[in-house]
């Protein structure tokens, strides 16, 4: 089963779908929607087959394909997946069909073409898959940049209030980051033996200063994408203005490219620089956890609030990556998946609430649980997943990040733990102000606010809820895939887990 060119097909398929959907006549939007959905489901099925074909105990990189591309630069179309990429690919293919169903009516009000909207979603899927599947540094860079284009149009053309401002801000921010990366990519090519092959580059040694400069180039691009404090201000604008479905993909997947990039490129390519910069990166991440959580508490706009919670969550991921232990690293990757599910769900549910009220302002709600009890219940569930309540998937990842960090750096873990109290504060206060308490009389005048979740909306939230619960009690299928990749990465960085300080009951640390 391993011989099938999974990654090429997986990348190409959505693009083909996008072309088909785009060509459909504007007058028949329903057809476009159904084709897009069916196409994304097909991609999902293929990705599941790929998951089965992947051998968790096998080589680090599997499903490898390599084709000639630009011989003079030694840039090749090389695709390969390690456990980390595999998990991210699955996240993409799971979320896209869900987002398509969730966005069913999002483009209806827009003056733009409806098929274009769904075609853009499929283009976005293609680029997201490509960026995770690429195993050639230049190919990765290309996908990294191209990914901006469909998202720019999704926000700029189909977004809400202030969409133009948000779209341009998003684009410029990412472009600036991309330029830093481009400089680093070229620098890497020059000093790394005139190749873009990841494998070859990881085995080459750089002078200390060169490594640090190149690391910084990549890191700035990824820190903007993730986003880490203080590069975060584009996200609340973009998340606030994007249509709910696109926002779910933006925060759920696109931002993960940043943390994925750090794990795949910064750490293995520049181990010395990674260790050198780790304290600074952890400091930024830690500030992000506390700072963004406090900002989330202070937000009055639902979508901006969710965006800020994401920045706080990315802080946890950052701490997990730069703690350099197996638990923290595995936790960080698992966090990337779980955050995609939980925050994806939260964005989608908030979107449903906002669509009913035509407002994202929290003050326009109040007591909504009385009118839409099921929707309020799902919002609460998504909130619980966001605050990482045990029993939901994010708990496992947060626990792993914190426990793994604690073994090597106690103050950082303790400060980060304060973040879990703040998380409870922003979630519960948001839930209280929107769904509990006295019913806001203005809601009664809005007929759509009386309609609880429709069947379509239930289809959107149900798979995410089930996945969050399942992975909350049985994360093993995923951790088993992530674990070897993370251990290999830790080896690249040259770090191993500390043994228990007073080890009377267990053997020494893992190999």
């Amino acid at each position, binding site marked *: 089963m391993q011989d099938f060119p999974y990654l090429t097909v997986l990348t190409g398929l959505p693009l083909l779908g996008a072309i088909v959907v785009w060509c459909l006549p504007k007058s028949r939007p329903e057809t476009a929607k159904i084709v897009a959905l069916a196409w994304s489901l097909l991609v999902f099925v293929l990705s599941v087959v790929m998951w089965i074909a992947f051998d968790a105990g096998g080589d680090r990189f599997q499903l490898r394909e390599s084709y000639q591309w630009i011989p003079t630069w030694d840039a090749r179309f090389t695709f390969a997946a390690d456990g980390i990429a595999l998990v991210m690919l699955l996240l993409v293919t799971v979320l896209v069909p869900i987002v398509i169903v969730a966005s069913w009516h999002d483009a209806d009000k827009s003056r733009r073409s409806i098929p274009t909207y769904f075609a853009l979603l499929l283009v976005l899927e293609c680029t997201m898959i490509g960026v995770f599947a690429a195993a050639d540094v230049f190919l990765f860079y290309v996908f990294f940049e191209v990914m901006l284009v469909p998202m720019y149009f999704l926000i*700029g053309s189909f977004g809400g209030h202030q969409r*133009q*401002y948000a*779209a*341009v801000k998003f*684009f*410029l921010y990412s472009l600036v980051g991309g*330029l830093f990366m481009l*400089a680093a990519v*070229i620098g890497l090519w*020059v000093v790394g033996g005139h190749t873009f092959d990841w494998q070859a580059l990881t085995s080459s040694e*750089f002078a200390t200063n060169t490594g640090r*400069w190149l690391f910084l180039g990549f890191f700035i691009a990824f820190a903007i994408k993730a986003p880490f404090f203080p590069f*975060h*201000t584009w996200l609340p604008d973009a998340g606030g203005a994007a249509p709910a479905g696109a926002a779910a993909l933006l925060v759920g997947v696109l931002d993960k490219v940043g943390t994925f990039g750090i794990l795949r490129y910064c750490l293995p390519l520049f181990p010395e620089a990674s260790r050198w910069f780790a304290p600074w990166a952890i400091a930024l991440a830690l500030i992000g956890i506390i700072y963004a959580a*406090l*900002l989330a*508490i*202070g*937000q009055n706009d639902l979508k901006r609030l969710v965006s800020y919670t994401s920045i706080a969550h990315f802080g946890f991921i950052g701490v997990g990556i730069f703690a350099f232990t197996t*638990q923290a690293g*595995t936790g960080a990757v698992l966090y990337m998946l779980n955050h995609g599910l939980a925050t994806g769900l939260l964005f989608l549910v908030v979107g449903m609430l906002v669509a009913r009220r035509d407002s994202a302002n929290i003050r326009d709600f109040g007591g909504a*649980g009385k009118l839409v009890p099921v929707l309020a219940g799902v919002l609460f569930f998504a909130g*619980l997943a966001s605050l990482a*309540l*045990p*029993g939901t998937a994010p*708990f*496992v990842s947060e*626990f*792993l990040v*914190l*426990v*793994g960090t*604690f*073994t090597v750096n106690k103050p950082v873990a*303790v400060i980060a*733990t304060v973040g*879990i*109290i703040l998380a*409870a504060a922003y979630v*519960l206060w948001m839930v*209280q102000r929107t769904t*509990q*308490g*006295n019913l806001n009389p203005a809601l009664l005048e809005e007929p759509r606010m009386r309609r609880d979740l429709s069947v379509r909306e239930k289809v959107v939230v149900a798979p995410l809820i089930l996945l969050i619960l399942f992975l909350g009690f*049985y*994360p*093993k299928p995923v*951790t*088993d895939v992530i674990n070897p990749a993370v*251990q290999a990465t830790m080896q690249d960085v040259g770090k191993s887990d500390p043994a*228990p300080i*007073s*080890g009377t*009951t*267990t*053997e020494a*640390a*893992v190999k």
Partner: protein
Amino acid sequence: MEQTIEYAHATGVLGSVWLLIAIPLVSSAVILLLGRRSAKFAHWLGTAAIGAGFVLTLIYFFSLRDQPNRAVERNLWEFISVGNLKVDIGLLFDPLSAVFCLLITGVGFLIHLYAVGYMAHDERRHTFFGYFNLFAAAMLLLVLGNNYVMLYLGWEGVGLASYLLISFWYTRPSAATAGKKAFLMNRVGDAGLVIAIFTMFAYLGSTNYADVFNGVGGLSSTVVLLMGLLLLLGATGKSGQFPLQAWLPDAMEGPTPVSALIHAATMVTAGVYLIARSNAIFSANEVLQTVVVSVGALTLLIGCIIGAAKDDIKRVLAWSTVSQIGYMFLGVGLGGGAYALAIIHLLAHGFFKANMFLGAGSVMHGMKDQVDIRRFGGLWKLMPWTFGTFTAGWLAIVGFPGFSGFFTKEPIIVAAFEREGWTAWLYGWAALLGAGLTAFYMTRLWVLTFLGPKRWTEDIEHPHESPPIMVGPLVLLAIGSAIAGGLMASPVAKWLEPPLPHEAGHPEPVMSHGVITTLSLVLTFAGIGLAYLLFRRGTALVEQPAGVVVTAARRNLYADAFNEIVFEKPGIFLTRALVFLDNRGIDGAVNGLAAAVGGGSGRLRRLQTGFVRSYAMSMMAGALVVVAAFVAVQMGWLS
């Protein structure tokens, strides 16, 4: 301590111990998923689930007696396995978890039954039972886990259920706020608990009870102290002990059966369970034990003082819960044989406090949800069953000779006097004083509610006794309140050892046993007599001006004011300041930079209309950077 702790693998009947958690969990899921469609049967399904749990617990309980070391564990599946961190979804059924299971399912069943009647007129009764079952499942997981992560899962699960049930009437702003307050204050404690778990892994490489308890001996005393203090922080949060006590009285916003089951009989005693379960850690450090004892002694007095100043029947009971759990903390802090004393008091308290809360609910049921004891009076004639059963609970809590509390509280007081040196006097007298105060405020509550003249509001014409489905559980709980303590005391102490430590021979108390008991009885009767004399003719209908102490007690000893001034107000200011800073400062700098690069302000806005131009320009800028990078590389600046 030198003994290595091992648990046998659960076989035979005991292999199915997971059913205890699964049954209420499935029942809860069915009810919540069906929503309104389950309205016709949800209450019976929920009650039956707990009833089945009780029957199963009895079966497991009796099978456990035949096991060689009376402790079996069952690892169901691998939860986390990353590096050398291994955590199983694993259960431990031993004497300690067994008595908790009996309490949770036994008293829980009676309260479920009562709630069938109490919630009959609520249109969301099915949801109530869904949450109630969810609570039972989480609480059983909490006491059945065989490692600290399982305990934490249950710990957070009961926190969630507690939140949902406190804010069950979520359209009331006060209920929503109380639920949030409970969750947040608990999260502060949870942070302590979870860091304690990190410490276990970092120092011992495991979170399993057996590994941790066996490894504690090898740890430095500083680490043990820290680990214990962190666990204690978790315990104080869940159990409403100082300094995290302020949420518990507000939790009375929930329906009364919730107050009885969660905020009196079971969940709030989880802190006591945590410390008793971790006795290997707590017994290993004397400073730690002194801290626990101090928290217990201080909280039991706080509870009494505030309880004496409140006029809301449920809040008086809530503060008495805070105070009684203070006694339990005192017990587990004293260590040695007192661990078992605390657990026995906890069980007896489960009966009498559930009994009184349900009695309060019965009174409210007949009085149009009135909770102000100044507006009751003379109800003994109209609600004879409620009066009789409540009286049993009252006699039990004040420690009237022959009733439960007398057999369970008294030994803790004696144990406090067994400490060494002057601390025996300090903690012993705190416990004695608490006994007197308890007698006073509980008698005040009892007299004002049931005796004396009627002081009802005008809209109440015929207060009525509650229906049989509510009275039945009351009667059973009243019997338990009266006799449980006396019957349980010595067999349960024996049953609990191990896992609780063996009493290694008493040191002599600083006063003789007889003197302590006499003093305690004198104080109790003084409290009862004083309260009776003061309140037999009723009390003023509105709050009277009062001295410093009473005013402070009415304001919960200013704990809420403290939280508001120290945490809430600065917190709100900080978030507002940060929002301003983020919008104007960081983002402003970015926009300013963009504008400067683009040449003049307002440029950014114009760029939005000319996307292609901006793109091209950015590409230009990008190309410049690239060229610069190339030059840098070629000139060797980077290498």
